């Protein structure tokens, strides 16, 4: 029973994507004690589904405040206790909302294709547009950033943008989708066709109310040498990684299978559910209003621009 209590305490926290996978293991361990979960903490169904098959937020409809953690991950502060400062976080959130009221920052995930237009004093037209696939999202608060990758003229190019950079004029999500992994850095070691996107790509329209599609594309990596030790990263979006025996052994030695049972580690690396609720309650109504205005604008735009035929 003591174990079950501990377990339910852990479930009470809303976990990051990686952590939730380990949670699944914990749950399966708990087995019969499942009753405790429902009794102690009402947790949304999505929270217990594993990483890849997670049910996405219904687009168009207002997201549940708890689901905001996937749509707006940058609103959650860094869980490191030495970086926490409730006043600074609050001020940052206010600044983020102020910025969001000026510029439409769409919902996007790692694997989505974005077009970013920035004011660039170095460019002749004073603005610069880059299209690419989002391979990483990191940072929180005003420092939230993302990396776009594309292959232009057979040359791989990556650009790091800050989400709340005042020089950003426009962010367009050309294709909204997720991939199997939380980071797509392995595209650097994948053949060019996996990260080639045309700059004059048309935005793809997804009907409202449909979940965000998950692209289960499996990438084949180029032969070694690689930039990182991909065989150790447990990648779902990469087809059979073959390494020599020595590397295999080393990868096996470097495994840390006990980490998923480490409740304290989960505790340290996540923001508690209560705090998340508090944070999103603060910004939720504003975010919701912004989303509604965005949808209105989208409808207007589609109405104004009918396609010419002939």
């Amino acid at each position, binding site marked *: 029973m003591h174990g079950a209590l501990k377990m339910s305490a852990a479930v009470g926290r809303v976990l990051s994507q990686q952590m939730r996978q380990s949670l699944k293991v914990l749950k399966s361990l708990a087995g019969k004690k499942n009753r405790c979960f429902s009794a102690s903490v009402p947790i949304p169904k999505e929270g217990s589904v594993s990483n890849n098959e997670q049910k996405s937020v219904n687009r168009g409809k207002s997201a549940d405040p708890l689901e905001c953690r996937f749509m707006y991950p940058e609103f959650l502060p860094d869980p490191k206790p030495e970086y926490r400062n409730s006043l600074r976080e609050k001020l940052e959130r206010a600044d983020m909302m102020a910025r969001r009221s000026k510029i439409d920052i769409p919902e996007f995930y790692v694997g989505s294709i974005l077009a970013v237009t920035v004011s660039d*004093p170095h460019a002749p037209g004073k603005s*610069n547009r880059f299209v690419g696939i989002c391979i990483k999202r990191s940072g929180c608060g005003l420092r939230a950033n993302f990396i776009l990758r594309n292959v232009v003229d057979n*040359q791989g190019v990556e650009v790091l943008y800050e989400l709340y950079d005042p*020089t950003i004029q426009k962010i367009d999500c050309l294709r909204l989708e997720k991939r199997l992994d939380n980071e797509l850095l392995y595209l650097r070691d994948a053949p060019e066709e996996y990260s080639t996107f045309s700059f004059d790509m048309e935005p793809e329209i997804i009907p409202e109310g449909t979940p965000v599609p998950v692209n289960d594309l499996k990438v084949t990596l180029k032969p070694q040498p690689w930039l990182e030790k991909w065989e150790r990263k447990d990648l779902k979006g990469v087809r059979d990684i073959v390494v020599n025996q020595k590397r295999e052994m080393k990868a096996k030695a470097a495994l840390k299978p006990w980490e998923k049972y480490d409740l304290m580690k989960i505790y340290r690396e996540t923001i508690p559910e209560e705090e998340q609720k508090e944070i999103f309650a603060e910004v939720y109504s504003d975010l919701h209003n912004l989303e509604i205005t965005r949808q209105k604008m989208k409808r207007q735009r589609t109405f104004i621009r009918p396609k010419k035929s002939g």
Partner: protein
Amino acid sequence: MALRNTMMNFSSRAIHTSAICNQIIKLTRLRVVDNSDIGKQAMVEGKPPKCIHIYNKIGVGYIGDKVLVAIKGEKKKGILVGLKQNQKTKVPKFDSNNIVLIDDSGTPLGTRIHVPIPHILRTILKNKTHAKGADYTKLIAIATRFV
């Protein structure tokens, strides 16, 4: 098995495995991205040029810096036009370390650059060009695409 494991750990501890910073230093291999004869030949033969000097006071080449390279047994100068290293925000980072060969007056040896060039290079090269020194802005004129 245990012995083998300890042996392996011991041997792997002998080399350091920190992340590389991809700096351009002496003896770094570079990639010529213009269509100059010597550059094209060197790349086709699989003998990419080596950096043998960096014309700044740090000894590490950053974007827009002039380098001296050893290419096909000759010494040529080049401008770094794209780096693998992590860059500042909004500055593109490339998958290879690219140079464009120039002569002493700053005129490129080739007539075309066949990879994208960062926009920021316009400003950097303009600042490096002086009235009586070399004119690096000719390099911008032969670029085909900017990112």
